[in-house]
């Protein structure tokens, strides 16, 4: 009897491993024909599909050059010096507040990741999309996001990354991506001018404080939208990388907070369920106006705000 159970368990394990392998292979296959999420925004072209002649032996430099692949890879690089990995987006505080969940860290982490993605999508993604669609409104977007950020911890994190993004743009990307005849998208040129102007205002108003006129701050989300526009990404890519980078940062924090190992983190990052979650959240907020943006996970505000109360901290948020 006991031996039987053992045997069936062994079989089940093997089946699940094979299924996982099958799943991986299918995902690889599907990844080559990955379609865009539904879009209602007319001026966006979808660039998800890598042309099928990829399998031809002939090298086609045009397919790489004409797409935004290069910019996409630059912006999704974990080596992009934004300092994103100094922040756990509330994970550290969440773990401290939910000690009773320590028994099953994986379940507990999955819950957090899901909440965190829903929250970033409902609070910040509308600003990313608005920054992309209307780069010229960056200053208003920056002010409104600053007004909507309920705690100092989150504010610091957002501003630090936003200013770092301006720094990277000016010192590294601008030279290659701001050439006037590089893009046919007039929006991209508007975006370049908008960043330049915003950056100037940011530098000139440092330290100048009025009670009701706080001056620009440099929040991350709207700047991300504008920079992506300037670099020729389409709107879907912009939104997808924004959420994916957030998921990566949270997962990286989880590894460093000893919630899981690096392979497990990559496993989650690669999983279809994470993709589905991200897509569903993007789809949900696709047409959300910034005025309608808001916190869908009230508990998260509390965890992030109480990060300051932790006795020992390894992250800045």
């Amino acid at each position, binding site marked *: 009897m006991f031996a039987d159970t053992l045997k069936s368990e062994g079989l089940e394990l093997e089946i699940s491993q094979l*299924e*996982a392998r099958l*799943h991986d292979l299918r995902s690889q296959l599907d990844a080559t024909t990955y379609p865009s999420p539904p879009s209602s925004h007319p001026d966006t072209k979808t660039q998800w599909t890598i042309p099928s002649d990829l399998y031809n032996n002939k090298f086609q430099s045009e397919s790489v050059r004409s797409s935004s692949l290069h910019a996409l890879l630059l912006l999704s690089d974990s080596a992009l010096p934004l300092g994103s990995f100094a922040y756990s987006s509330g994970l550290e505080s969440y773990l401290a507040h939910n000690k009773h969940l320590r028994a099953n860290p994986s379940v507990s982490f999955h819950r957090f990741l899901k909440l965190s993605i829903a929250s970033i999508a409902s609070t910040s993604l509308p600003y990313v999309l608005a920054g992309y669609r209307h780069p010229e409104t960056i200053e208003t977007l920056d002010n409104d996001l*600053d007004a909507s950020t309920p705690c100092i911890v989150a504010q610091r994190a957002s501003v630090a990354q936003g200013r770092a993004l301006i720094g990277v743009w000016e010192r590294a990307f601008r030279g290659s991506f701001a050439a006037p005849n590089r893009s046919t998208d007039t929006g991209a040129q508007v975006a370049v001018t908008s960043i330049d102007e915003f950056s100037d205002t940011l530098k000139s108003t440092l330290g100048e404080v009025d009670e009701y006129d706080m001056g620009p701050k440099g929040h991350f989300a709207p700047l991300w939208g504008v920079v992506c526009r300037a670099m020729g990404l389409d709107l879907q890519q912009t939104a997808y990388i924004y959420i994916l980078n957030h998921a990566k940062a949270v997962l990286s924090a989880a590894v460093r907070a000893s919630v899981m190992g690096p392979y497990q983190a990559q496993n989650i990052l690669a999983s279809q*369920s994470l993709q589905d979650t991200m897509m569903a959240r993007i789809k949900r907020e696709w*047409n959300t106006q910034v005025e*309608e943006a*808001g916190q869908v996970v009230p508990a998260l505000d*509390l965890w992030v*705000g109480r990060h300051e109360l932790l006795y020992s901290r390894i992250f800045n948020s």
Partner: protein
Amino acid sequence: MRQPTMPIRSPFESSIAKPGQGNVVLSLLPPNNPTLTTLTYKYPLKLVPRAPGFIPEPDPAALSDKCPSMPVHLYLLTYGGGLLPGDHIEVSIKLDPRTRMVVTTPQGSTKIFKTDSKTDSNFNVIKGHRKKLPANESISDMSQQSLDVKIGRQAAICYLPDPSVPYKDSRYAQVQKFTVDASAKGDQRSSLCVLDWVTQGRTSRGENWNFRFWKGRNEVWAADEKTGKNRLLLRDSVILDDESEAIDADDDEELDIGGMSGSNSHLVHADTPSQAGLVPLNIIQERTRPHGVVGTLILSGPVFDSLGAYFMHQFTSQPRIGSRNWSSESSAPEPSISTNGDVTWTAARVRAGFVLVKFGAKDFETAKVWLGGLLREEGSIAREFGEEALFCL
């Protein structure tokens, strides 16, 4: 002796066209006489001024400037103590310079009744006054409340209402907009204290975040009359959505990723067995857990400066999470109200001098005792506005 005029119009007068609208203007008539120069409302809304009972103790040091006038107390009521589907309450309040107003809701809670187009006829039988609702129009059968308050220089509003109690299957959206005078600086600034809280529903009936939609948005704007420019100072927005509805009518197809989801769906589940146990039936419950009530308190302006500082002090002096008491002999710090284990809260001094307090508690009673306790312990609200300002706490 000249009598101050009290032109309180009849609520049945048809000066306001739409039901649920109310309009209040509080002016300071000479020499120092706060008067409601406008007070109109229409069913199902009711606005009742309370006879001014409280007179702030004259503080000789700051008689002329800091305590300019007696607070006027306004009750905000709705028939039946709550909102039916399709009800749209729209209150606009204007506080002239140097006036003070207390607004409370003396009904214990703001009940949000359930939305169900099938029972519309029942509602009409019971509440004969209410207009017949167009069926299947999701926006029109949502209960809505909007509050628009303009606060002049040196004026102050203290708005500590009952919590919103959304019943099972209800849908509700609320927008509260406060506009302060941008040209006022320092001690001349407008002051506001606003509480916004929502509970899980009727716990006696086992409701636990079982409504369909609740959205609360609070905004503070600075308006410059000279330039006509408005600037957003603060926006606090909470959206509790069970996401049972499709978001877009024209964009309705499932997020089907190229046939991938069909063939692989069982694998997705097999892949993440840990998540299977996590998929909650109630998405709002999952996002508010472990709290039974969540809320926000917004404080700004010279009148509430000391209260804001008090909250910040209480917050930063909470015991560190995860710290250990190394000295065995020292006694544990006395348990004070602010460190109540059933309340999780945070306070932040965000921009423009605003103090934002966010809290979650296991139930309404706990939150009420905690918040009421802190406000009474600090004492400035009772001192400036009278004990009745804390009526709901």
